[in-house]
């Protein structure tokens, strides 16, 4: 098997709340291969978003190691950290909260290229147009403000921003959860197309087991900050072994289907 793109070992994070300590991530170890989708699923408070944020270094762990593209990611500082960060991107549930809602689409896409020095000022308008086309948007949208476009278009802009720095891994934290169902399928198809063509790996944080089963290669089910069960996404969800896995699957609403 090829070298994992991301390898996490012993990742631990405790939060103090009131007088008690909550272990949001408890000795978590996982890996993601290039071009692979690993889903993190579990009930609220199970630690799935905490683990994503630890990997992104949005919060600091109490213990553990994160290797990304063959190096100790948590040890990186300064310019080397910035360079490596370009390869690890993120898309959240609410782009209006994650991005500056008053910025134009062009500005949102210009920032990462400018910050990471990926294109000169003169080249950037063409690159922005190409990015918009890549995510299925008209380049004419560049001058619009984020609050003027639809939720689905905004999430496409967030994806365009994430791929602007040519990442090898994108953390998708409930990235399709707030979308209307008719839009959600198109966004998932876009993500799959990017994965096929650019070989991008995804860490897919989701509470929706139906989507996880259809979209992810493997899944980790979490409970109280610990890994309860993991494996091939369809194998785990079709036949969960853990108590929490069985409860999660049983709670998914079923649409009665006709035999056809």
């Amino acid at each position, binding site marked *: *098997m090829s070298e994992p793109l991301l390898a996490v070992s012993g990742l631990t994070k405790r939060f103090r709340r009131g007088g008690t300590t909550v272990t949001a991530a408890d000795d978590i170890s996982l890996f993601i*291969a*290039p*071009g*692979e*989708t690993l889903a993190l699923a579990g*009930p*609220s408070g199970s630690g799935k978003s905490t683990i994503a944020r630890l990997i992104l270094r949005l919060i600091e762990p109490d213990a553990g190691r994160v290797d990304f593209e063959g190096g100790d990611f948590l040890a990186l500082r300064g310019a080397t950290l910035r360079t490596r960060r370009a390869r690890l991107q993120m898309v959240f549930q609410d782009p209006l909260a994650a991005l500056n809602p008053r910025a134009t689409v062009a500005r949102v896409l210009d920032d990462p290229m400018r910050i990471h020095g990926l294109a000169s000022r003169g080249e950037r308008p063409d690159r922005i147009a190409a990015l918009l086309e890549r995510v299925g948007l008209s380049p004419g949208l560049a001058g619009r403000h984020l609050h003027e476009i639809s*939720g689905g278009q905004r999430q496409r802009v967030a994806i365009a921003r994430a791929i602007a720095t040519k990442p090898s891994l994108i953390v998708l934290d409930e990235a399709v959860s707030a979308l*209307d*169902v*008719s839009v*959600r*399928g198109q966004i*998932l*198809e876009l993500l*799959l197309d990017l*994965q*096929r063509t650019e*070989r991008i*790996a995804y860490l897919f944080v989701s*509470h*929706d*087991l*139906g*989507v996880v*089963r*259809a*979209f*992810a*290669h*493997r899944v980790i089910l979490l409970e109280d900050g610990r890994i309860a069960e993991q494996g*091939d*996404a*369809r*194998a785990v*969800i*079709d036949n969960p072994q853990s108590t929490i896995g069985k*409860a*999660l*699957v*049983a*709670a*998914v*609403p*079923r*649409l*009665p*289907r*006709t035999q056809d």
Partner: protein
Amino acid sequence: MTGPLVSIRNLSVSYRRDATSPSLRNIDLDIIAGERLAIIGESGSGKSTLALAIAGLLPSTATVDGAILWSGQPLLPRGGRDIGFVFQDASASLDPVMTVGRQIAEVARTHLGLGWAQAQHRALELLRRVRLPDPDTALGAYPHQLSGGQRQRVAIAAAIAAGPRLLIADEATSALDTIVQAEIVALIRQLVVEDGMALLFVSHDIALAAELADRIAVFRSGEMVELGTADAVIQAPGHAYTRKLLDAHIGLDAAPMIAQAGHGHV
């Protein structure tokens, strides 16, 4: 046979003065006493506007045409008394600086004319009915001390405290995780059956609606495109948009979108 509990006749609602893009257009719909009716739609469908209009909770700036008849009378039902309303965000609908017991007791006191002691007793009874753990202690708790699912149980207790004939749940389980959602849906189902309430269940989730509702109304861009029994709407949808919603649903039986399980060898 008795008439419908609520009759909606040619209802149009617009939030804008020019009324060029109404949020609801010419809606005709009956809610039958004791039935569970789901309103399904995506953003901008008007489903929440319908719920607010029935409950008399639209902002005063909204333009409303048509009629909403309550038990055949063009009378406004009393909010909280005849209609209980459960919103998506329980933290926003509960008073953060009032104890849970007092919030529920106040509904009972206001609408049922109970004294404080009786109202407190009724609050405790309701917290038991919504199966809040340790209800005696919870009476004195504040909303922030409870989990999201527990807060929604409290909001449901407050909504049914005066014994309404219609319970409206507007995306009441959408912010909850799947396990808690299933528990709250089971609780709502049990309560409406026990109390003989009608339920208006507003949701974006067609599978959830199919599990809970007797009838489903599908809304799109302010119009009702389909209305029928849950079985008919799910098994034999009459409108292309309903079929589209059903096709877009990604359930546990959906075909995988990725070519095959593997470790990234694409």
